[in-house]
Every structure is written in C-alpha cells, then in structure tokens.
C-alpha cells in the first residue's frame, strides 16, 4: 500500500487533487489500484490512455495482434512508427511515455478459457475492449467467477453501448444477452466498417466508469445500459435487472466454470480464417487469373456495396450487394460457372450459401477477396 505521493506526482495529478471528489486520498486509491484491459484496439486505446494518465498504479494489457496501418483510423494508442510491432508492446511504450510512474503488464496472448482466470485474478477491475462474442462471454464469466466489475463497451458502425456488469450488485452481460446472435447476423467491423471516433467516445465512457468504480464516487452504470448513436447523436438509458434464470449469476446457475466459448457462440474468437468458403469452394487469385484468361466470358459476381467499387474494382464483374443477392438472383444463370468475390471472402461465402440453397452449383469464392487479388494479381489496386 503506497501512502503518499512524491512532489513530482503531486504536480502531475494536481488537477485531480484540486477536486474534492478525488483529492489526495482518491489519487492514492488510484495509485494502489489495478485494471486489466482486454484488447488494445479501438476501445482499449482510449481506456488504457486515460487510465494511465489518471495514475492507475498497474494496468494489464491483453492482445495477441500486431499493429496494422488500417488500425490507426481509430486505435490511437498506436502510431505509424509502431506498425508491425506487437500491439501490447506498442501500447506499453505509449503508456509509459504518458506516465512513467505506472506499471504496465503485458500479455501477448489471446484471452482464453485456459489463461483468463490466471491473468485476471490479480486485477481490481476488468475492462471489456474485445471485438468478438466468444471473448465477450469469456470476459463476462471470468468477471462473475472472480467477483470483479466488468466495464463493458461495445461498438458497431455508429452504435455504441456501455454498462458496468457487476454480478455482486447487479446484472451481468448474460442477464441481458443470454445467448449470442447467430453467426452471420452481425457483420464484422472489417466488413461493416466503424466510424473511427466511435470507439473513442465509448472507450472514454468506459474509462470514466472504471475510474468512478475505483474511486467509489458518483452513480455508476450498474443496472443501466447506455446506448449511443453517433449519427443521430442520441444517448438513451435503459434499466437492466438481474435475470433470475441467468446461467452464470442466477440462483440456479448451471455454468460454474469457463466453457468452450467458440463453440457456445458458433464462431471463432481468435485467429480465424474468415476469408474462405471452405475446401472445394475456394479459388486462389492466380487460379482465377488463369480461368479468366481461358474463358474471358466467365461470370464474376462482386457482392460488395456499390460505394466500395469506387475504392477498387475488377473490370467486367457484375455487382449485386450481398443484401440483394436473394432478391436479384434471377439476374444470374445457375447453369453458368461463376466466381464470387467481396473484400476478403466472408460476404462472398454467405452469397454462395444463399445461391447454393437456390440450386446454384457452379460457383467459386475468390479466396481472400479483392484484397488478395490486389496483392497477388493486379497490384495497381489499393488494399483496404
């Protein structure tokens, strides 16, 4: 237990010390507290930055990815100079530059049922900055089992949600969402996009809630869900109650240990190759190039959105956005061979599923989508 601040620290935190709600005792509380941030992406960036700036004594960062330039539109903890580096190392460098007083522990590994309890047990609060359902359910269950507050934030395009799930005092994530939505219902940010500033808003709200919980001040979002829409600029609050049938925190809970979250969600949480339609359906960019050379009339079906064609397009391809494939399949001939593609392959795989159920058989999915085509065949096209 650290019981005093150095003169340098008093100067650093003077704007906190001036506020009676924080003051010297609050600042010492923060210095003696710890927070685990799961994910150092869009949400984890502002969360970790503000917690470090606020003087949280120990911050844990979990991520297994490396920094990519397409991250920098929103993941502001990283920078151009750290592209290619491990995200946890890039983030630690930035945090230590912002505040050398704090300890930053890094975990360069996926957060899984095997390591989650071990990693999380020594932190006061857990912050959910994850980007997929399996890891969200895992983060929730770990928080419930360890009796720690889970500072929840989630984003999609222009929508964001924030809450504090703390089973000791209120509902948990599973009380609201007992089951994840079926795979395929919610497109990923990589496919659906995300407004870059949105995780900034949501992550900053998570950091706010984390600091309040650690300081024990104000009204927290326990039992409340904040819904934000950046496009409409609306903030709505709804009440959340503990679900008496909750499988992890209810009185008759039947889930008492961590489970296989990828199976539970029906989706991979980590290292997923979501660019392929599976064996037998894939065609590589090189193979596609050869096929086009042999048969210039081969049908190419681009299932991306029309505005994506402005970024990169393959000449001669017919564009039917995925959402319209079911209604417009009469424009296609099921007897003709066809190569379906999108940005990376997952929308094309869904289009193939729709067309298969309508009796189409002669289809191939361009593995890796137009991005792979741009990398391997037509390098004049940009990657996006």
């Amino acid at each position, binding site marked *: 237990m650290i019981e005093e601040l150095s003169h340098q620290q008093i100067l650093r935190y003077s704007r906190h010390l001036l506020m009676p709600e924080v003051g010297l005792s609050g600042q010492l509380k923060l210095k003696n507290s710890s927070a685990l941030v799961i994910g150092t992406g869009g949400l984890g960036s502002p969360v970790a930055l503000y917690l470090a700036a606020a003087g949280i004594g120990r911050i844990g960062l979990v991520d297994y990815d490396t920094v990519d330039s397409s991250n920098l539109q929103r993941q502001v903890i990283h920078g151009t100079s750290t592209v290619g580096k491990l995200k946890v190392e890039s983030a630690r460098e930035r945090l230590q530059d912002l505040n050398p007083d704090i300890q930053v522990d890094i975990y360069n590994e996926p957060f899984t049922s095997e390591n989650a309890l071990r990693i999380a047990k020594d932190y006061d609060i857990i912050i959910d900055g*994850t980007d*997929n359902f399996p890891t969200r359910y895992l983060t929730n269950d770990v928080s419930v089992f360890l009796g720690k507050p889970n500072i929840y934030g989630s984003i999609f395009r222009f929508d964001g949600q924030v809450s504090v799930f703390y089973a000791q005092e209120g509902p948990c994530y599973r009380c609201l969402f007992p089951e*994840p*939505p079926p795979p*395929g219902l919610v497109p990923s940010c990589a*496919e659906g996009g995300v407004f870059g500033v949105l995780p900034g808003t949501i992550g900053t709200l998570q950091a706010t809630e984390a600091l309040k919980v650690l300081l024990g001040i104000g009204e927290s979002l326990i039992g409340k869900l904040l819904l934000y*829409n950046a496009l409409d600029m609306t903030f709505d609050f709804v009440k959340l*109650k503990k679900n008496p049938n909750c499988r992890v925190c209810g009185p008759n809970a039947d889930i008492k240990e961590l489970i296989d979250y990828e199976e539970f969600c*029906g*989706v991979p949480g980590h290292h997923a190759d979501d660019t392929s339609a599976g064996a037998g359906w894939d065609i590589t960019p090189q193979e596609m190039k050869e096929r086009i050379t042999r048969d210039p009339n081969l049908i190419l079906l681009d299932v991306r959105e029309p505005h994506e064609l402005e970024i990169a397009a393959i000449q001669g391809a017919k564009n039917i956005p995925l959402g319209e494939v079911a209604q417009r399949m009469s424009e296609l001939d099921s007897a003709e061979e066809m190569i379906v593609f999108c940005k990376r392959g997952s929308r094309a795989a869904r289009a193939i599923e729709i067309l298969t159920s309508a009796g189409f058989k002669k289809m191939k999915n361009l593995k890796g989508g137009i991005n792979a085509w741009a990398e391997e065949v037509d390098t004049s096209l940009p990657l996006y």
Partner: protein
Amino acid sequence: MTTLRIPTPLRAYTSGKSEVTVGGAKISEALTDLTNQFPAIKPHLFSEGGELRPFVNLFVGENNIKDLQGVDTPIKDGEKIMLIPSIAGGSLIPNPSPEGEGSPFSLRERVRVRAK
C-alpha cells in the same frame, strides 16, 4: 401509434430506417405490424417456431419487456419501443459451410445440435 427504434445492424432489413411507426396495443401486435411492413426482418427477430429469439431485447421506455409481461406487455400511445442488439465490435463471421441449409442460423443451430 408508437415509434420503434431500429438498431444499425437491423436497418438493412427496414430499408435503412432508424425508426418505424407501428400500431398495436401490445408488443406482439407492434411486432406483427413491423414484420408486415418489413418481412425481411422477421427471421432476425423470431425463431422458426415463432418465438422471439433469446438475443432480441425489446425495451418499452426504460424497461425490458422480459421484466414486464413479455410480448403481452401493453404499449401506451406515444411510448417509445427500442430494439437493442447484441453488438461485439469487430466480431468475426464464420464461413457458411458448403452443405449449409441456406439459413443464416444454420451453423448456430448445428452447434446447438452438437452440444446436446
């Protein structure tokens, strides 16, 4: 008449509309009106057996209908209904398997069958 707020992920099935005006004295009637106006949204809200899917959360004002009378919850005129989605950030989409049944729920249902 009442206003039903549609979250971004489901706007693809409501012609991009963020709010839909629906009629009905209770939630079930309002949802019937919604699915009559926008049939494409139906499989995203209801199972094949016609039950509201467990990940679908509907709030009347500030309250979850699960904490009220479920789909029988009455709606007062002008009260706002919100559909609250599960969103996960960059959630990954699995690949539909080639032998898939053509439904967006097939993999999930296969997983459930396997889990039994």
